[in-house]
């Protein structure tokens, strides 16, 4: 009896410890949300800067009291969309190759390379982009500088590869063997099986990977800051135009800003936050749909 009681007590203590650990995450997310929203909404509540001008303005000149982020929103969306357009097909085909086609040795090598890619600090992607991609873009660009939407897209496309590859690969490998065998029995080739049977069956898992990739692309800061050009105005109209995504706007100026300028940088954060929340909700919905089916 005594021994069982003591064991139960011990379990309770350990359980409590786990609860405290879990609270760290909850408290952090609440603190960050409250902090960013409190500071970010202040300028609009106190009327020190009109919300409409903030969201629709196309020029960011803190010294002249001009704080428009519309061109940054456009830049962020274009860059993310472009990165998905290039990165996702490459990532899915990589995942298919690793799990369906490659022999175990080559598969291991590729998987290892993708995992390494995930471990590279983002600033190094930026340095690589500035040293290799930007000069290359400059060669083909009609503009005089290589920092551009295109360079940003290329860096981001590489950066989202690990996320999309690993999640797609996992969901492809859990597709039941019977599906493939059934397909082969009907006379389908390997490639036909992959595209008509395996990928549709793994669809929701792949979509989760893609959406996490979007989250990564839209939130990336350090690497992008070095290759995007960060102009103070202008909606990008071509791949060779410079962009200033929401994230780099915050990172560039937070160090020196004060007063309304600083608050509006938090507001930029709020906009970014809303984007990322939408993406997370979408992921949750997809995951639920997957469980449902």
């Amino acid at each position, binding site marked *: 009896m005594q021994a069982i009681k003591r064991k139960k007590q011990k379990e309770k203590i350990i359980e409590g410890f786990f609860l405290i650990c879990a609270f760290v995450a909850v408290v952090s997310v609440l603190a960050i949300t409250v902090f960013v929203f409190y500071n970010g909404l202040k300028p609009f509540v106190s009327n020190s800067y009109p919300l409409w001008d903030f969201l629709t303005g196309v020029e960011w000149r803190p010294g002249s009291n001009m704080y428009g982020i519309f061109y940054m929103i456009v830049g962020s969306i274009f860059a993310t969309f472009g990165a998905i357009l290039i990165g996702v097909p490459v990532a899915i085909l990589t995942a298919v190759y690793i799990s369906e086609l490659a022999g175990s040795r080559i598969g291991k090598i590729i998987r290892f390379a993708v995992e390494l890619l995930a471990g590279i600090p983002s600033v190094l992607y930026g340095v690589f982009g500035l040293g290799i991609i930007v000069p290359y873009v400059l060669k083909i660009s009609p503009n005089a*500088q290589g920092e551009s939407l295109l360079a940003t897209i290329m860096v981001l496309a590489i950066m989202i590869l690990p996320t999309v590859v690993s999640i797609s690969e996992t969901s492809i490998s859990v597709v039941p063997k019977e599906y493939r065998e059934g397909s082969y029995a009907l006379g389908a080739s390997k490639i036909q099986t992959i595209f008509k049977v395996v990928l549709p069956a793994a669809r929701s898992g792949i979509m989760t990977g893609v959406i996490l990739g979007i989250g990564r692309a839209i939130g990336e800061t350090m690497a992008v800051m070095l290759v995007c050009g960060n102009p103070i105005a202008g909606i990008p109209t071509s791949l060779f135009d410079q962009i200033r995504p929401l994230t780099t706007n915050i990172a560039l100026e937070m160090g*020196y800003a004060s007063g309304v300028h600083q608050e509006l940088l938090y507001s930029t954060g709020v906009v970014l936050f809303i984007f990322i929340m939408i993406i997370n909700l979408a992921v949750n919905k997809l995951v639920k749909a997957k469980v449902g089916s």
Partner: protein
Amino acid sequence: MSKSLKKILVSLLVGATVLTLAGCGSSGTTTSTTETTKTAISGEINGGGSTSVQKVIDAAGSEFTALNPDVKFTYSGTGSSDGIKGATAGTYSFGCASRDLKTEEQGSLTELIFAYDGIAVVLNPANTVKNLTTEQVGKIYMGEITNWSEVGGADAPIVVVSREDGSGTRGAFEELVKFEEKLKPDATIKEGNGNVQTTVAGNANAIGYVSLTFVDKTVAAIDIDGVKATVDNVKNKTYKISRPFLAVYDKAKVDDATLAFLDFLMTTEGQAIVEEHGGIAV
């Protein structure tokens, strides 16, 4: 061994011990007296003025208060003119300015130049342009001059590289070249001196600016109005894109703590802080 010999030995030993102790005691007293003179620096130092010097002064201030715990140090960045006014009126123990004083501002103030700030205009080494006037630099940054051929170079578009908003170097550059808040919209913005330099080194048509102490061999610092961008030319005031960092105080009103702080600023330690924050030591 005889008894008397033992006695002599013992007394010698005792004597030696007493002497050593006395020695320790006396040396102990001297240390404590020097310490009291050192800790004599106490009081409140409240400086104010130029925002450009804030980083240097804040860093020097926290170092100074670490050495003298009885000192309370504050500095408010309110602008050079305010710093000079505050020092004249006595509301600041000392004021800081990042420009020379106007004659009407001088009054009874004592000036102390504790650092210089110089900005080099850098081009890609492949660029044939080696000299620009301050006015031309301003026009390039405002977008009025957009091709190198307009300033004697090859027929190629100029890629303007600037720093992020709020950067002290950008603020100083815009002020000294006189294009405040008129930077052309499509200028490439880079964070930090290093990134500007990398960008200019990687683009044959780029123009950028970096702290004078930061220029390396990957880029070419050009002459401004025919004057080379060197530390000496900043100090003798012939190089235009530069400015002094001044501390001003009223001799009649200044207290010992403030003077001790300003002395500290001029020591090797203080000057090292200046250089650490991008300034040029005096």
